[in-house]
């Protein structure tokens, strides 16, 4: 799959400051085991050569269908999963092969918010304890100052200080997600990976949480890797958007360019599938046929060739690489 290797799209001035997160040719293959002896009979190519970077205070939206490897990218970048190949750099430091102990100080720079606000908080700890734990693990301050910092975090994410002694199940979904955000913010990270942080919430609460995240970004200059499948949410929060299909990035551009001028046929279809909240608009919908192929046995050549309406002969032979179409708008398609 080496042909899928691409160049890192430059988005910030590389000379001034290394990007907060720089992922190069990241791969994560899960072995498929079978039988009593657990022989490996194949691999799930969940992430298959992904390259991107996120600059300070920026938001990169990562979109794609379910099962395309978005969450795996997030978790591998966090070193919650061990990458099969590729490198992960945090503010210029390569953390790909650091041991658990060596990695600990770098954990302060990157944090994660999960999708499910019900399983992401330990039901046996109070909200205060949950938010305080990062400070305690990284030996920041003493007990009194930790308590003060926790209070400040509660204020910051819009929770009342009196709620510190409550347990997670006493909060609503949106409030729980705020606790998750407070926990992620406790260490003042440079990067927060949001793994579909609002997908499980009601639409009205989604807006609140998204706006909170954007306000916090402005205040604290934190960068987001925002993983989602909801295009409207991604359009609202992102500066740049990467579209993933079956373990690879197929298109990358800044938000405006991507939404106005999608180049990849998959992006086109994705955008046309998103509802527009105006019943008077009639448009030609490009509806994709078929399902996403199995990541255990991805198609040869371009991964999208099984569903692409424009696929030609070479699409079945040669995998396209990401090509720059100007202004950092890159697309992996032979035809565009």
């Amino acid at each position, binding site marked *: 799959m080496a042909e899928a290797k691409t160049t890192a799209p430059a988005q910030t001035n590389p000379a001034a400051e290394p990007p907060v997160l720089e992922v190069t040719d990241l791969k994560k293959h899960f072995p498929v085991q079978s039988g009593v002896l657990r022989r490996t009979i194949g691999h799930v190519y969940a992430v298959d050569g992904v390259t991107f970077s996120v600059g300070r205070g920026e938001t990169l939206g990562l979109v794609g269908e379910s099962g395309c490897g978005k969450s795996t990218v997030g978790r591998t970048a966090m070193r919650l999963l061990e990458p099969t190949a590729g490198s992960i750099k945090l503010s210029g430091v390569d953390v790909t092969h650091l041991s658990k102990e060596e990695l600990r100080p770098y954990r302060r720079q990157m944090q*994660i918010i*999960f*999708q499910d606000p019900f399983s*992401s908080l*330990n039901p*046996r700890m109070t909200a205060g304890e949950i938010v305080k*734990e990062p400070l305690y693990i990284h030996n920041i301050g003493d007990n009194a100052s930790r308590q003060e910092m926790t209070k400040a975090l509660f204020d910051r994410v819009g929770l009342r200080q009196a709620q510190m002694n409550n347990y997670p199940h006493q909060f609503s979904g949106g409030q729980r997600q705020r606790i998750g955000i407070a926990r992620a913010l406790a260490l003042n990270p440079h990067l927060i990976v949001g793994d579909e942080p609002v997908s499980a919430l009601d639409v009205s609460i989604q807006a609140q949480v998204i706006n909170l995240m954007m306000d916090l970004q402005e205040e604290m200059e934190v960068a987001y890797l925002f993983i989602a499948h909801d295009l409207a949410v991604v359009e609202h929060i992102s500066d740049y958007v990467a579209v993933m299909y079956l373990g690879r990035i197929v298109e990358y551009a800044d938000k405006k360019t991507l939404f106005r001028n999608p180049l990849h046929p998959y992006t086109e279809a994705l955008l046309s599938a998103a509802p527009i909240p105006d019943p008077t608009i009639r448009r030609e919908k490009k509806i994709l046929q078929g399902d996403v192929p199995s990541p255990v046995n991805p198609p040869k050549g371009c991964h999208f060739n099984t569903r692409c309406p424009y696929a030609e002969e070479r699409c079945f032979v040669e995998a396209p690489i990401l090509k720059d179409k100007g202004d950092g708008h890159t697309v992996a398609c032979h035809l565009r």
Partner: protein
Amino acid sequence: MTLSPINRRRIATFRANKRGYWAALVFAVLFMASLFAEFIANDKPFIVMYDGAIHMPVFKAYPETAFGGEFLTEADYRDPVVAGKIHEEGWMLWPLIRYHHATVAWDLPAPAPTGPGASHVLGTDDQARDVAARLIYGFRISVLFGFTLVIFSSIVGVSAGLVQGFYGGWLDLIFQRFIEIWGGLPQLYILIILASVVEPNFWWLLGLLMLFSWTGLVGVVRAETLRARNLDFVRAARALGVSNSKIMFRHVLPNAMVATITFLPFILAGSVTTLTALDFIGFGLPPGSPSLGEMLQQGKNNLQAPWLGLTGFFAIASLLTLLVFAGEAVRDAFDPRKTLA
């Protein structure tokens, strides 16, 4: 003592389960009382006032000569001669039941076992020992044995289950097969064989039963751990750089505790039953020890003396019932939905 709000609510929930709360209370009172069995049923008085000096025979052995007797052996306070000499020069204060569990009553009106009466509330057994006294001491040894066994086997079982569930993979696979094979061993035969090699006392028996009882909790803790380790809050803890041992004890174990604690009273009840069963077939505590199982065995051998079997039966039945009811209240108290709703 200050309690955190959560513990205060737990106690409130515990009390809200009336049946369990009272069962726990009654059990606690009985257990505390049995711990002071020497002051309830004994063949020695608490205090002897003799010749202006205070003697405490429960704590110290006095020779008969101390009370004007003839022998240098320990005074037998139940002997009318000794008692008479003490009453000449002072007085003595007796416990409620004037028999120790091993005291043989020589002055029975009929051949032992004799039925309940004024001097023996629950009658005597076939060796002319007071049943009430044996019941109190037997209750104590059963419960103490049960507690000790539960504590040790849950320490081993919880740690094994936690490690297995948390690390999973090959370790888990091998451990599980080992436990299956171990569980397949015929427990009773091995205990009987071992009991014929060593003379079983309290600690030997505890060790032998522990060989098999520790596996009881492994399954529960392992299952809870397997579930918890894939939850997002464990991932979040990993992302924070929390070490494996801290994740296990701070995040995984507390979430496995409800299932574990719910099991404990039932395991305690199980341990009491096992000891009773071993005593009943004669492979338990050494001969002469007071035990509920031995009382049942006597009841079986002396069907003409139903007070033996009935006492044993009611004692075990009420002990197990109290433990199960108390266990239910404990489970409620640790249920977050009940405690925090």
